[in-house]
């Protein structure tokens, strides 16, 4: 029971982080024309796909309701993890591939870099690999990746969604942030600071059973949303 409560608290924290976007720093390509080679720092990425019901009956019943909700969410996410594993879908690898594509298509050279990261946050400025031959570090933290329904019932289907934050940091001066933004694909009640990308209309699943009933389409939906989120990171660097 305690583990379920902790998990519920952690989920709440992750949702809060997604909701509290910080003020964005827009990228000025012309002013940063010396940035040609970008080091993609190994992104923060959740272990499993999330399956979130943004409003439920349980929320009306205090802590007991929250615990029940957390238990149900945990069960849904275990089933989703099994489905994703069976389909051999690797969201992080897909994201990295799409990010490479998004940046090279926009004229950047890219290099993969490793750096120590605190969970769900950017790498500390001092921890970027300073000896790497790059002009800037692209630091991305995917906070949520999975499916989300605004409520229960057929009128609020599960749709794929991603929440991420990203920043581009100068390699010459790692305290200088050249770009910072939050990107939310299919958000609920989005904050005004974050880029909001509408859900993909072709991917709507009536309920959780419908998600589980069509594994190829479920993983296809995840692929599309992960690719779109990576491309949006590329777009803010145009």
């Amino acid at each position, binding site marked *: 029971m305690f583990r379920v409560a902790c998990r519920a608290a952690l989920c709440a924290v992750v949702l809060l982080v997604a909701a509290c976007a910080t*003020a964005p720093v827009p990228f000025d390509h012309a002013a940063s024309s010396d940035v040609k080679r970008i080091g993609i720092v190994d992104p923060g990425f959740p272990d499993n796909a999330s399956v979130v019901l943004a*409003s439920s009956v349980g929320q009306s019943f205090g802590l007991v309701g929250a615990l029940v909700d957390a238990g149900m969410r945990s069960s849904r996410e275990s089933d989703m993890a099994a489905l994703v594993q069976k389909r051999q879908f690797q969201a992080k690898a897909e994201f990295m591939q799409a990010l490479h594509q998004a940046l090279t298509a926009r004229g950047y050279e890219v290099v993969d870099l490793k750096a120590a990261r605190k969970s769900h946050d950017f790498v500390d400025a001092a921890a970027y690999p300073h000896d790497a031959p790059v002009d800037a570090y692209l630091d991305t933290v995917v906070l949520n990746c999975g499916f989300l329904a*605004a409520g229960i019932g057929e009128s609020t289907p599960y749709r794929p969604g991603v929440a991420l934050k990203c920043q581009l940091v100068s390699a010459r001066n790692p305290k200088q942030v050249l770009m910072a933004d939050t990107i939310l694909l299919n958000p609920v009640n989005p904050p005004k600071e974050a880029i909001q990308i509408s859900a993909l209309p072709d991917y709507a699943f009536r309920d959780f059973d419908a998600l589980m009933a069509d594994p190829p389409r479920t993983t296809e939906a995840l692929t599309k949303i992960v690719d779109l989120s990576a491309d949006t990171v590329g777009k803010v660097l145009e």
Partner: protein
Amino acid sequence: MRPLPFAGLGLGLAALLGACASQPVKPTLTVDRGACDTSPMLAPAAPLNFDLRDEKTTDVQLDKQSRCLEVDGARDYYAVYDLPRADQPYSLAVGAIPEGTSLPSLQVVLLDAQGTVSRRLTASQFQFRGDRFVALFKSRQNEARMIVQSDHALVGQELSRIQERTETNVISGIAGHVAFFGSLHTGEDKTVSNTFSYTGRLIVTITPIPTAS
């Protein structure tokens, strides 16, 4: 019989409020004006609210009273702003909030002190941030003025998006001898469509960007 006068008063108030309710905003699909400027008039330019320590917003209505510009037979309404001069960089978010079915189609032109165009932000640079459809960009030292104008190429086109929302309503009441109090959580998933318009309320937000220490 006593409650009747109050009921009558209530009905009267409701009728009055109904009559005062604003009409849904529809998109403006034409520029109904006589002669338009053939090049933008850069003076007078409106100032923008600015504070080195905090985010500041300026609202302007782009409407049938705004200046209009005609280039190659295409007309647009426009507004001109003086950009704040500051040593510290700042971000500008230029955009609008959909009203009714209408969403202003916008483009932004930035000019230096001599009036030479430095850069132009068009449809592909606009995105939804919360409920605002905005272009977000960083200030440049050489830029002194900004023209925000409608984008005739977009007017009449439709933009659809899926909106997900949740709502919490507090409920309370008395059933027999038992009082109850609680909250009801509901969700909504709907497709919203807006048509790009020549007019609407523009919002310009300036936020200082902290410099590297």
